[in-house]
């Protein structure tokens, strides 16, 4: 039997806010009976746009019931903007933690909330389309990638705990492993080798040409590269820019920002006269 915290037990045995809010402003439905758990969340806003009442119905294990109960408690009194920041980890934390095998219950809570907020705003949750990777539980690559990214998951077992994918026939394990590697590869980009001076100069010139000059020219201005000393990039303004009182802002917000983005985050731009 799973080890549950007292808080989980309390919310399972005496769940708060069971039922359905009348004339709800937000409705979220996730899960299915085939998957073994499902959650129906409803809430109502007050005049200030805060969640005045929230209720749930759930089919699932003790963690699913406790997570739903915790979720309704967490969102009450919050604006939609505040509520939408709630993560599955916060739901789990509120309960003093969930067994790792049961983290998918907190994920279900987060998803139901997203859906309910979207329905309230009259939009649709951007359902990450994608290809079904786990046939047993109907989980797509996009959903797996998101869970891996948001919770820094490292193993197939982690993915199963958070999404259920891989918890059945295990045929999808290889694909899940590939997705983990892909996402982990994104988040930990290969250490870039430092640029040589020549590479750096070339890249700065290219960036000025491609990303900076066209927008300055639109306003009748221009810029010229004067020198590069270490990470200091010295430039001179030309045309309209030379006489523009906002030139220092342009230097910071456009020139320096673009050079940092495309060349190196360490660069500092200085305006010199020449």
């Amino acid at each position, binding site marked *: *039997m*799973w080890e549950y915290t007292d808080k989980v037990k309390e919310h*399972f*045995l005496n*769940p708060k806010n*069971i039922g359905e809010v009348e004339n709800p402003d937000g409705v979220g*439905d996730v899960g299915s*009976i*085939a998957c*073994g*758990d*499902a*959650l*129906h969340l409803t809430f109502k806003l007050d005049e200030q746009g805060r969640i005045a009442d929230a209720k749930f*119905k*759930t*089919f*699932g*294990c*003790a963690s*699913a*019931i406790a997570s739903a109960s915790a979720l309704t408690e967490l969102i009450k009194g919050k604006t939609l903007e505040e509520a939408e920041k709630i993560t599955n980890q916060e739901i789990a934390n509120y309960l003093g933690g969930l067994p790792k*095998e049961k983290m998918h219950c907190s994920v279900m809570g987060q998803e139901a909330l997203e859906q309910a907020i979207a329905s309230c705003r009259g939009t649709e949750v951007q359902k990450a389309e994608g290809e079904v990777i786990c046939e*047993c*539980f109907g989980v797509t690559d996009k959903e797996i990638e998101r869970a891996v990214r948001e919770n820094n998951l490292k193993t197939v077992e982690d993915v*199963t705990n958070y999404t*259920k994918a891989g*918890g*059945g026939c295990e045929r999808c394990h290889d694909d899940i492993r590939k997705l983990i590697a892909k996402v982990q590869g994104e988040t930990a980009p290969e250490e870039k080798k430092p640029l040589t001076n020549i590479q750096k100069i070339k890249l700065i010139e290219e960036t000025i040409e491609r990303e900076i000059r066209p927008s300055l020219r639109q306003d009748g201005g221009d810029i010229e590269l004067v020198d590069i000393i270490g990470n200091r990039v010295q430039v001179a303004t030309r045309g309209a820019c030379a006489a523009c009182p906002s030139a220092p802002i342009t230097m910071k917000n456009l020139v320096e920002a673009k050079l940092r983005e495309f060349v190196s985050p360490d660069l500092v731009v200085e305006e010199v006269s020449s």
Partner: protein
Amino acid sequence: MKPIYVDNNATTQVAPEVMAAMLPYFREYYGNPSSMHTFGGQVGPKVRKAREQVAELIGANADEILFTSCGSESDNTAIRSALASNPEKRHIIISRVEHPAIRSLTASLENQGYRVTEIPVDSQGHLNLEKLQESLTPDTAIVSIMWANNETGVIFPLEKIAEMVHRHGITFHTDAVQAVGKIPINLRNTTIDMLSLSGHKLHAPKGVGGLFIRKGTKFSPFLIGGHQERGRRAGTENVPGIIGLGAGCQLAKKNMDQENSRVRKLRDHLEKELLYRIPNSLVNGDPLQRLPNTSNISFEFVEGESILLMLNEFNICASSGSACTSGSLEPSHVIRAMGVPFTMAHGSIRFSLSIYNTREEVDFIIDKLPPIIERLRLMSPFGSQGNKAACTLQ
């Protein structure tokens, strides 16, 4: 409150008689039966006696009984022995509802290049005998089919199955861990080659099991070392455990009638009342061809772990074939193999009784469970119709 233990297919309490039989062999008679001195010699006859007691329960000869550490070891020994004795054959047949002791073993053998065929069951849990017949090939080294299912209690027509397999000259093994001690078994009338049993399912302790190996069956040991068990299993004998197993078998023989009448009546009462009081509930498995102590009931629109934990609040200890309690996310492979729909499969609870359960205990469960189901259904997005729907009891 004293716990109401209705999870006897998981394990049983050691019977007081069994305990009494074992105790002296921890403190007074702790000799090693392999020793030459008197001290060791004192226990040898007791081990022999236990072997006879086991043999007697299942209609075998004492020298056909091998003591092991558990049912899983017996299963492993039987299957690996059959493969080692027929090295040219690469095919194994099991049922789709075998215990993990068999399923995990054959899955690992599959990775080593063996072919495994799993015979399906129908909605009542009966084995598809035609499919079994078709699957027997000259390449089949062993067929291993359980005698009674641990989750539903469904009993397979083992004598018939063994006969069918034997006609093809294929070794036949049965995992009879749940059947031994609960229903009469007489191996003399059958062509079963090997049979596994386990102590802790019949009020003997955990950590001791047995394997029947019919005289003349080719055998290759699994544990290799000393000459214990006539060279068929190395390792110093678990003397107190073996004596406990013998005593447990003797007790089971004595209690068989009670198991088949009083326990069966209790089980039927439990089942009938629960089905009557809880709409949309259903018994899994053949209603008649079942172990007398086992009842597996599905409650639609609710999930097994939640039921179990709420029962636990009343100190009622049952078990669930549901995903959540087993560590896997899918409902029990047995229930799914029977094609029970998901709405039912997730909410299945197994009650397994023993001679120690009383009518009061069963009535207490009958009293406590319906409100639990009703409460969970009220909480469930699918469940409100479950509470109102007509009773499924015919």
